[in-house]
């Protein structure tokens, strides 16, 4: 049977061949299989490379530039991009390339912290609400309704205005508070769509307990949309951070973030477009990378969407 196998995945699902050369040896689990499919997806590779660069940038910005972003000389204020200053300089005469590189840390940190936080909260609450229904569902759903009733910007303004000094933790915390309901609802809906399918009934009939059913049957089958949304959310969060910062309730100077750079650059958009363009490209690439990662994961986790 192995002689007919090409290294990539077979085309006809009805063919009684093994699905891949490693299929029989590799651990037969969902995640191993998802990984196998991810490795062959070009979008995953592109986004993974971008994210790898981005994360390195966030963790070790000094690898990318020798300039100190806080060493600013008014003598070199408002320079156009050049060989010496790739992205030019800003009003204060800081090297803009270094500022954008160092800005990755805060933007990515907020994006990732909020997304992971929201993901975990939604996973647990959505799963409980959708699986057990009844009063658990009622309580969780009413709380999500409550938070939906508060306009996000207004709520965040009120909360953040109260907090005197706002760092990554404070901004991320407020964003989590306002962003978990959407994903919890998504997760709940996703769970509801699989909780009554026959394989869940069959699993119950064959003696699986609640935990086994949730872990083996509900979770893997309802995770796809939530994972894709987590990636989108990372983009939304990075945008929201910029919005809040622009409104003066996000991160505060002297912090370096893309949001702060964008809000500063607004005033000079006609004279010094490069001040807007470079942080915008950074935000765009980051959001793109997270989104294509999410799509790739969703495709990998759903065996029916695989291009077999």
């Amino acid at each position, binding site marked *: 049977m192995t002689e007919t196998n090409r290294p990539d995945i077979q085309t006809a699902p009805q063919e009684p061949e093994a699905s891949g050369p490693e299929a029989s040896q590799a651990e*037969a689990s969902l995640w191993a299989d998802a990984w196998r499919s991810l490795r062959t997806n070009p979008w995953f590779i592109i986004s993974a490379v971008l994210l790898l660069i981005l994360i390195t940038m966030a963790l070790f910005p000094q690898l990318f530039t020798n300039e100190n972003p806080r060493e600013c000389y008014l003598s070199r204020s408002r320079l156009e991009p050049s060989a010496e200053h790739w992205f030019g300089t800003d009003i204060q005469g800081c090297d803009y390339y270094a500022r954008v590189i160092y800005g990755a840390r805060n933007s990515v940190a907020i994006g990732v912290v909020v997304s992971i936080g929201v993901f975990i909260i939604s996973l647990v609450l959505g799963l409980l609400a959708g699986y057990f229904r009844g009063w658990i569902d009622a309580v969780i759903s009413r709380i999500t309704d409550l938070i939906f009733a508060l306009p996000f910007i207004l709520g965040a303004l009120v909360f953040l205005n109260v907090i005197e000094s706002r760092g990554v933790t404070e901004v991320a915390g407020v964003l989590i508070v306002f962003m978990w309901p959407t994903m919890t609802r998504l997760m709940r809906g996703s769970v509801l769509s699989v909780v009554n399918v026959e394989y869940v009934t069959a699993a119950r009939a064959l003696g699986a307990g609640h935990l086994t059913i949730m872990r*083996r049957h509900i979770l893997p089958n309802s995770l796809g949309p939530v994972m894709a949304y987590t990636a989108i959310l990372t983009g939304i969060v990075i945008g929201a951070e910029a919005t809040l910062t622009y409104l003066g309730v996000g991160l505060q100077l002297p912090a370096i973030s893309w949001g702060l750079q964008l809000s500063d650059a607004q005033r000079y958009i006609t004279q010094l477009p490069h001040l807007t363009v470079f942080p915008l490209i950074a935000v765009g690439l980051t959001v793109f990378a997270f989104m294509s990662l999410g799509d790739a994961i969703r495709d990998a986790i759903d065996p029916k969407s695989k291009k077999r």
Partner: protein
Amino acid sequence: MTTTTHPAGTEQEGYDASAPLLEVDDLHVEFRTKAGVARAVNGLNFTLNAGETLAILGESGSGKSVTAQTIMGILDMPPGHIAGGEIRYRGKNLFDMPEEQRRRLRGVNISMIFQDALSALNPVLPVGFQIAEMFRVHRGFKRKQAREEAVKLMQKVGIPAAEKRVGDYPHQFSGGMRQRIMIAMAIALDPDVLIADEPTTALDVTVQAQVMRLLKELQTENNMGLILITHDLGVVADVADKIAVMYAGRVMEAADVFEIYAKPGHPYTKGLLESLPRIDAEGERLNAIPGLPPALTNIPPGCPFSPRCPYSTELCRTDRPELLPVAEGHVSACHYREEIYSGELKPREEAQA
């Protein structure tokens, strides 16, 4: 056929080894819906012994599947509601058990096969993993050991190249192979009772016979009690030992398989048998039973079959017949069971004409 009982570690939990394997006693199940109370099962009785195949036969909506779900404890409650009766496994009432104890019975002592294996298997997990899961959940096997058991089971149910296919997903198998995998999962832990809810309905005719043969083999090998739920008279004929014919949530007639085919004691069974196409009846019109089963929210007061019955009288419309014997091991719920059994009674329309 041997009479050994299964070890399965059931003795210490207060089971009576001398009691019948499974007894359904005056079971009532209803669904409380907005349109009223639908009485799906109304006083059902049957007994299943080890090594025996009981076929439960009936039209759609006769309460067959609800019975199976009630035995397994997977009925959706609400809207489902057990309004009365008992189901005893080895003499112990399932409804008295705590949920956790019932869960441990499922899959281990009482197991079930579903109609459509494609939807009854998890699409995101390889089939071998799903079979192995049975050993990991109930027996605490390690991953590798469970996987080896899964391969053995796949070979046992006749899946070719089992070692190669253990990592494949349900959608990569044909319908018959999928049903075999479902069967492998259900018999993984040598259950005493296996309920098969229309196991061959989703399959084509040639595969139906193979799957039925496999079920029969496994049953003989493990001395299982098999409950075969079906609407297909042809499927049960060569597999079942006993047949119970259900209508509107009741057993209308129950007897040995040869007896019921040869001498039905109830007009409904007679009608079902007559509605089968026969090879020697070429050119004749097929005798379908006229009308539809009663709405379960509004079951007629007398015999539930009386509106469709060609023999029905005033007595049938007012008085509900009990399930009473017509011959040795043959019971029927008809006022005129003796006459039907002996073939003396003529349909009323003809008698009047």
